[in-house]
């Protein structure tokens, strides 16, 4: 795909820039050594090679495996009036004779949102992912766009981001399935009703419209809830969407503005403005953003992120059975717990009429397999709240990993110790919601623009483990 998109503009660019092209016979070789040439090492001259869309400096020899169908050309380039006499080798497959302002690692919803934001502010951006767009936690998440008030900072980020989603709403294609169905926080008893009122006041003070509903009203709004619930809080501006397509939409917008995307490319090392792929290729950017989700610590050591596993179950289509995203207020207890495994009643109506049933939280589980004990607890909890769910046909179960930080806030901003490295990870169970705001405040920091919300609570410097200083 990359190849088809790039073939034409590149040919044009080659002509414009007076690049000499010579075909290097590749028939006998399967890898090519890129090395600096002795004759071009004077001041202001720079050696580079461009490979499948990525530019990298040639300050030492690198060996690169190449595919036969790539066309290898040697180049000498004159860029503008400052005549930088550079020389290098280019492969036509996605060539771009420019270095990047930002290289983003990870094409989950956070990486995609960052790419979109960078591109919209005129930066040259490249995104690399070892798999595909939206394949990590983004493929597993429920896609609940929800305002949360765990802390002032969590509220600020979720609310800001929710408003960004609302503003984007009209541009979202059909398959993003954006639906402002609202959330009802369900109170099982009077104690939880007190929490409903507190939450209502908190949201009201901050301009979020909510409605306290009593037992009867709740029954009318959601007739399939068990009888005898105390009531709930309706948060009407909360929404749901389908995360993988939302990530793809953001990425495509970025690509339309020139962002380069490379998929199937595992990154093995990042730092000092470079991203190294497993095949040895290095991509140079002014800045590197680690948006590798729960895997971010593998690339940047010393960041305090743990994997927190979650289970979900989806049913066949039952249109009308459920109207709002329903979450038990006990959810807060569950999400808050930082040690033990927990489950909570959390069900979502999909636009297809399907019902998505969550949620579970588990530390210390590294494998993606379904854990029957957790699944049982989660589904029991769901049936306690909605007995009718028991008769519904479950079509599939899956799991995903949240990137959890100790204080439950994401890491957005520069990484201490490497001026060129930024983080955008640690979004735990809210990364779909907060992706857009995270991208805004990250790029604000990269460009030096003034963020709309205070950024201090999210700065990675707060969450550095000892190793990083060592």
């Amino acid at each position, binding site marked *: 795909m990359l190849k088809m998109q790039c073939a034409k503009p590149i040919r044009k660019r080659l002509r414009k820039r007076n690049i000499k092209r010579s075909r290097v016979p590749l028939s006998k070789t399967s890898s090519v050594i890129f090395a600096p040439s002795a004759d071009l090492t004077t001041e202001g001259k720079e050696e580079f090679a461009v490979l499948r869309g990525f530019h990298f400096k040639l300050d030492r020899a690198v060996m690169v495996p190449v595919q036969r169908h790539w066309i290898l050309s040697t180049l000498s380039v004159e860029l503008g009036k400052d005549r930088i006499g550079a020389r290098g080798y280019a492969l036509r497959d996605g060539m771009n004779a420019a270095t990047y302002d930002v290289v983003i690692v990870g094409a989950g919803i956070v990486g995609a949102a960052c790419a979109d934001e960078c591109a919209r502010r005129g930066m040259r951006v490249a995104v690399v992912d070892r798999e*595909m767009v939206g394949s990590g936690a983004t493929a597993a998440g429920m896609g609940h766009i929800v305002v949360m008030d765990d802390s002032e900072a969590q509220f600020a980020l979720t609310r800001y981001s929710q408003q960004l989603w609302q503003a984007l709403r009209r541009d979202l294609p059909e398959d993003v399935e954006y639906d402002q169905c609202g959330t009802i926080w369900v109170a099982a008893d009077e104690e939880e009703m007190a929490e409903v009122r507190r939450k209502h006041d908190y949201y009201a003070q901050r301009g979020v419209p909510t409605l306290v509903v009593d037992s009867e009203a709740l029954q009318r709004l959601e007739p399939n809830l068990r009888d005898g619930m105390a009531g709930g809080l309706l948060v009407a501006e909360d929404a749901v969407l389908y995360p993988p397509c939302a990530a793809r939409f953001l990425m495509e917008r970025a690509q339309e503005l020139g962002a380069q995307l490379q998929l199937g490319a595992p990154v093995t090392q990042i730092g000092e403005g470079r991203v190294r792929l497993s095949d040895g290729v290095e991509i140079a950017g002014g800045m590197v953003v680690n948006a590798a989700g729960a895997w971010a610590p593998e690339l940047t050591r010393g960041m305090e992120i743990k994997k927190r596993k979650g289970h979900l179950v989806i049913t066949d289509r039952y249109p009308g059975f459920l109207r709002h995203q329903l979450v038990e207020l006990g959810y807060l207890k569950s999400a808050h717990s930082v040690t033990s495994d927990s489950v909570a009643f959390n069900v979502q109506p999909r636009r297809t009429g399907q019902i998505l049933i969550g949620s579970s939280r588990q530390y210390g589980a590294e494998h993606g397999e*379904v854990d*029957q004990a957790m699944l*049982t607890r989660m589904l029991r909890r769901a*049936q306690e709240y909605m007995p009718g769910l028991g*008769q519904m*046909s479950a079509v*599939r*179960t*899956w799991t995903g990993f949240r990137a959890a930080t100790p204080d439950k806030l994401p890491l957005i901003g520069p990484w201490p110790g490497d001026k060129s490295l930024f983080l955008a990870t640690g979004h735990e169970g809210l990364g779909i919601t907060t992706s857009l705001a995270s991208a805004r405040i990250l790029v604000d920091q990269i460009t030096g623009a003034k963020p709309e919300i205070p950024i201090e609570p999210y700065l990675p410097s707060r969450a550095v483990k000892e190793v990083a200083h060592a």
Partner: protein
Amino acid sequence: MMDKDSQQPFDVLVIGAGPAGMAAAVRAAERGGRVGIVDDNPNCGGQIWRGAEDDHGQEATAWSSRLRNADITKLFGMRVFHQPETGVLLAEGTDDVCELRYTNLVLATGARERFLPFPGWTLPNVMGAGGLQAMVKSGLPVRGKRVVVAGTGPLLLAVAAYLRKQGAEIPIICEQASWSSLARFGVGLLGRPGKITQGLQLKKELAEIPFAANSWPIGAHGGQVLESVTISRGGKTEVIACDFLACGFHLVPNVELQSLLGCQISGGFVQVDEFQQTSVQRVFCAGEPTGIGGVELALVEGQIAGLAAVGEKNAAQKLFGERRESHRFARMLDRAFRLRPELRSLPSAETIVCRCEDVPYSRLQEHRSWRAAKLHSRCGMGPCQGRVCGPATQFLFQWNPDSVRPPVFPARVGSLGRVVSGL
């Protein structure tokens, strides 16, 4: 209904009561094992001996009566959907769920038809060949109806003969394979007396039905329901008026349960050793999941698995020779009915590939893998869990199937979340 839960494990639990599963259960039980057999149909027989009242010939009658007479716990109308813990399976019926414990397991889960999308294939009255046969068996009248039978594989002949017997008019059987590969298949059959008689019997029944090789459906047409089919026949196209199109492109094995249990699968088939044991200890597999080979191979593999599962290795070994012969037939089948590459261009941009989620061909072309297509287009996410579009896209795009997650078949939330005793 009795409580089907058994705290005491079966020595041998057999999943699937087609020929392979019946043979496994019977041989294991006749050697004194505590045996259980599960099938989601109300009766034994599987695909080929479906319909308890019908006469399926001597062999079927013999196995059915052995199954009836042996001391075997029969759990029919129950579908296995999950293994919550090693040695425990969950099975669901229309209004119950049960927990089945086993020491040895024989998976004889059979095969299903492969469908390939072409313009119009989603019209009412375009059906799977085996599917239409099953519907006729359960009461759909076809007397006087015109039924085009098309696709590939020996099943087409069996279905055509059956429908004809039920009074349908078969204007043509379209077989995509070439004459030369069919001829090789036919010649190969000479070494197989059993197959010859079977073939001859069919031949008589098929006597006046026109048969075309090198031909396949390229479009089905009609307003509300099917009215006609366009076929490509030896390079030319032809329109044939009809009431039904019975269409199937050979079989794909049901390997989802095996995959969930962690059995090694290669090239779409479950890998087994000479005693039909999979890569998972004490889990055996017999019949179509190890290779599409027909009833005889299913029967002999089932017997070997059943005997081996109760430790009767010597008796099992005596059947190896018979199995080798049936394997030859399986390989011939595979070669003769291999899908031709032209079939990859059957769908047009708008042709629906995933029927559950209405995903057209054009939305799949942009993707590189089954997982990417699934995530971004919802292909394969519907209630059939990709059982139809999975094999189709595997052929169309060479995509590999995804990992299998429970439930293997859709199951009630209550059943999936069942508390398993001892967990």
